[in-house]
């Protein structure tokens, strides 16, 4: 708070003081009061006024400056009231109390929303486990029906994939830690995914090759399985016409990290879309022209990767290939123990 601003604020009060001093002087003159008395009165009034202004100014200045500085310095501005001291003047106390009240009510509000989103996520988890039971029995029924049941199995697999999307979206958006990081074999994870999608892969005549998957990484097996499942689904969705579809999965050590490459020779991603593919609801050219896309798949992949502490990036040349890379950090704790 600058002194000039403070004075401008008090302009009315100062004007009134000056006017009353002027009237006082007129009275003094009318009653022929001696000159030195009126000078003394002027001095007293002036000094008292100055002291009052300065004293008041510095008292306020320290309070408002601490508000302003704390506000500028905080990244979580709602913690402001924790940073300032309760002031010793009435107006300041009103502001201070109002701040505390507002903050308290906001905290309650946030807590309520957090609770309700947590409840919602819990319900989604529960619902997913429930819906999987009829899907499981339908799958068994269609298998027991023999040949004629196959077409149902395909649709059931689609249903199951959509259910998984909801589950992992809910998981990726939630702050709760419901994963276990442990040593996981890349070979095993990819094997599970490949077996699960075997019918579709064979139908589309996709050639699969793997390289260097006999490595282990620190991750949550179920989450990684879902992530690779999404990537595989994308590769099958965007197959290029006129050449044999190929998917090459490889892992390599690079700068102390394990990098998993998921590369296909599909239609690729236009260079203008490439920087945005991991953004929420971004569909891009392929999503609009090839098949309906929700723009959620890669977004969920990215948020799951971030939660697990992996980084994910993409490299692609349109009409040639797409290479999605997931980079896993090494667990120093484990290496230290060895």
């Amino acid at each position, binding site marked *: 708070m600058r002194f000039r601003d403070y004075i401008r604020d008090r302009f009315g009060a100062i004007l009134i003081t000056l006017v009353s001093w002027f009237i006082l002087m007129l009275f003094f003159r009318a009653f022929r009061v001696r000159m030195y008395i009126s000078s003394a009165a002027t001095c007293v009034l002036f000094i008292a006024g100055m002291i009052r202004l300065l004293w008041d100014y510095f008292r306020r200045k320290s309070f408002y400056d601490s508000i302003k500085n704390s506000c500028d310095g905080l990244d979580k501005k709602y913690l402001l009231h924790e940073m300032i001291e309760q002031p010793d003047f009435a107006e300041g106390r009103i502001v201070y109390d109002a701040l505390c009240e507002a903050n308290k009510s906001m905290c309650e509000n946030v807590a309520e929303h957090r609770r309700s989103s947590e409840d919602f996520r819990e319900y989604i988890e529960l619902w997913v486990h429930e819906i*999987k039971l009829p899907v*499981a029995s339908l*799958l*068994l029924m269609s298998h027991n029906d023999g040949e004629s049941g196959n077409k149902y199995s395909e649709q059931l697999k689609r249903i199951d994939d959509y259910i998984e999307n909801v589950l992992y979206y809910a998981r990726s958006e939630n702050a709760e830690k419901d994963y*276990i990081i442990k040593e996981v074999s890349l070979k095993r994870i990819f*094997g599970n995914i490949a077996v699960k999608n*075997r019918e579709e892969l*064979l139908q589309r005549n996709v050639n699969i090759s793997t390289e260097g998957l006999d490595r282990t990484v620190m991750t949550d097996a*179920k989450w990684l399985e879902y992530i690779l499942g999404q990537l595989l689904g994308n590769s099958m969705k965007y197959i290029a016409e006129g050449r044999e579809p190929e998917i090459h999965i490889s892992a390599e050590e690079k700068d102390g990290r394990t990098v998993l490459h998921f590369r296909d020779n599909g239609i690729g991603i236009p260079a203008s879309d490439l920087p945005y593919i991991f953004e929420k609801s971004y569909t891009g050219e392929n999503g609009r022209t090839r098949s309906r896309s929700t723009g959620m798949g890669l977004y969920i992949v990215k948020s799951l990767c971030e939660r697990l502490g992996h980084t994910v990036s993409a490299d692609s040349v349109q009409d040639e290939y797409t290479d999605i890379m997931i980079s896993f950090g090494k667990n120093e704790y484990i290496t230290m123990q060895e």
Partner: protein
Amino acid sequence: MSKIFIVEDDTAIRSELAELLKNAGYETDTTEDFSATAEAVLNSAPDLVLLDINIPHANGQQVLRDIRSKSSVPVIMVTSHTSEIDEVLSMSCGADDYVTKPYNPTILLLRISAVLKRSAAKPENNTYNGLELNTAKGILGNGEKEVSLTKNELLIFQQLLDRKGEIVTRDDLMTVLWDNEEYINDNALTVNISRLRAKLADIGCDNAIETRKKQGYVLV
């Protein structure tokens, strides 16, 4: 015939599962009273237990602990919970395998036969017409004549041998191969089978593998 005990509270799944297992040549047993699941399992003395985690009264992991305290019967945990925490917990309670719903029935059967094989006390019969199959070396022979098999041929032959005289579908063979990280396509499977046939013929087993149109293959 191996007996499999199904612990599952969803009636639809339970009956379909029983049918699946019967079709695959297993005997099944089950319970509808979940207040004393572990006792029911132990009384039935099965060769393998399919145990659901979400059952009334006690949870599956508790039941598993009760079973483990008295018996070492192989147990496969089955659940619709896709969380690593459940899997880790189940394995630490002594489960032999863990399968999530909805499972691919072929894979479930594969896992069951794998677990049963592992737990079988007697050494399995790995001979065919006097020829011994050495899985570790990948060699089939009787000392005089022998051929070496590739990994794919070995997996196919092993599967046919395990179910000698039965029809093994192409789908079954594919599942076995893919489950062993051999991601081959339809043509490659046909090629592998004909190579295997040629190798068997080399050591005097002509026409060992018969083709059943639209069904699969039989090792005779």
